[in-house]
């Protein structure tokens, strides 16, 4: 089976228009850690056409407690390892990787072509830098960020809020630290809230609105 045949199988259950809209979409992911790898895998499985992923780091053993890498990838450059993984998940997706630290200077060059930018950093001051830069340089591009995902349990507090082009997933208060380290389940919930909001934004106006949006879909 070649990638196109695989793709046709993967979208065989999708309503009319959904596959096409996703196929022509580009999503940028800033960071390839706990959030970024989970978002990337979810969107690759969902058959988003193109992903742009930037991260400067290398896979460490301790990352495996939540990041979507494998034991035999410890020591590898993260974006290269993630691209390998995504190619195994869905070789049809176009994956552009950048082994680089995202800054104000390279922001537009890296993410200018994206329809949506997903913030997947770990440090709060980097999140702030990204949001400020995005709002200044690419104010029309929806930005889906995460804040508050530490620890375990209390899924009820995790939600998605919106302020204009900015969408925020998490509980907005639980910092990931020694008391509440980032753990796979809770990080995964927030990453999937982000990925789900990405689909909602991308698929706005396509056929019937997706089943989960209800009357007050957050992205509308």
């Amino acid at each position, binding site marked *: 089976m070649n990638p196109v045949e695989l793709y046709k199988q993967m979208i065989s259950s999708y309503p009319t228009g959904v596959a096409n809209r996703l196929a022509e979409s580009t999503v940028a992911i800033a960071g390839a850690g706990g959030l970024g790898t989970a978002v990337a895998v979810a969107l690759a499985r969902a058959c988003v056409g193109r992903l742009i992923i930037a991260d400067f780091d290398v896979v460490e053993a301790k990352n495996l407690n939540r990041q979507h890498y494998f034991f035999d990838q410890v020591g590898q450059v993260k974006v290269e390892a993630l691209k390998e993984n995504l190619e195994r998940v869905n070789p049809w997706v176009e994956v552009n990787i950048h082994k680089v630290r995202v800054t104000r200077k390279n922001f537009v060059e890296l993410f200018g072509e994206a329809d949506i930018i997903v913030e997947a950093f770990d440090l709060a001051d980097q999140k702030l830098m990204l949001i*400020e830069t995005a709002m200044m340089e690419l104010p029309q591009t929806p930005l889906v960020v995460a804040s508050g995902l530490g620890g375990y349990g209390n899924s009820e507090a995790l939600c998605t809020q919106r302020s204009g082009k900015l969408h925020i997933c998490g509980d907005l208060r639980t910092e990931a630290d020694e008391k509440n380290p980032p753990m796979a389940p809770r990080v995964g919930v927030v990453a999937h809230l982000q990925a789900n909001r990405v689909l909602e934004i991308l698929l706005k106006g396509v056929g019937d609105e997706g089943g989960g949006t209800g009357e007050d879909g957050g992205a509308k």
Partner: protein
Amino acid sequence: MITVNGGELAWEEGMTVQVVLDRMKYTSHLILVKVDGEVIPQKDFASAQVSDGAVVEAIHLVGGG
């Protein structure tokens, strides 16, 4: 009167974003501020004016991801 995160705060002559944060006792330096829908960069907090009737959102960002 201005609105901060949905609640009311008395407006003051010459009010800047920093003054709003001080009145709300938001002390963290990792706060994203929007005034009437526009993001105000941190470097401008002490100078950006907030007019009477403005709608301010202050989102505290925490680390992790």
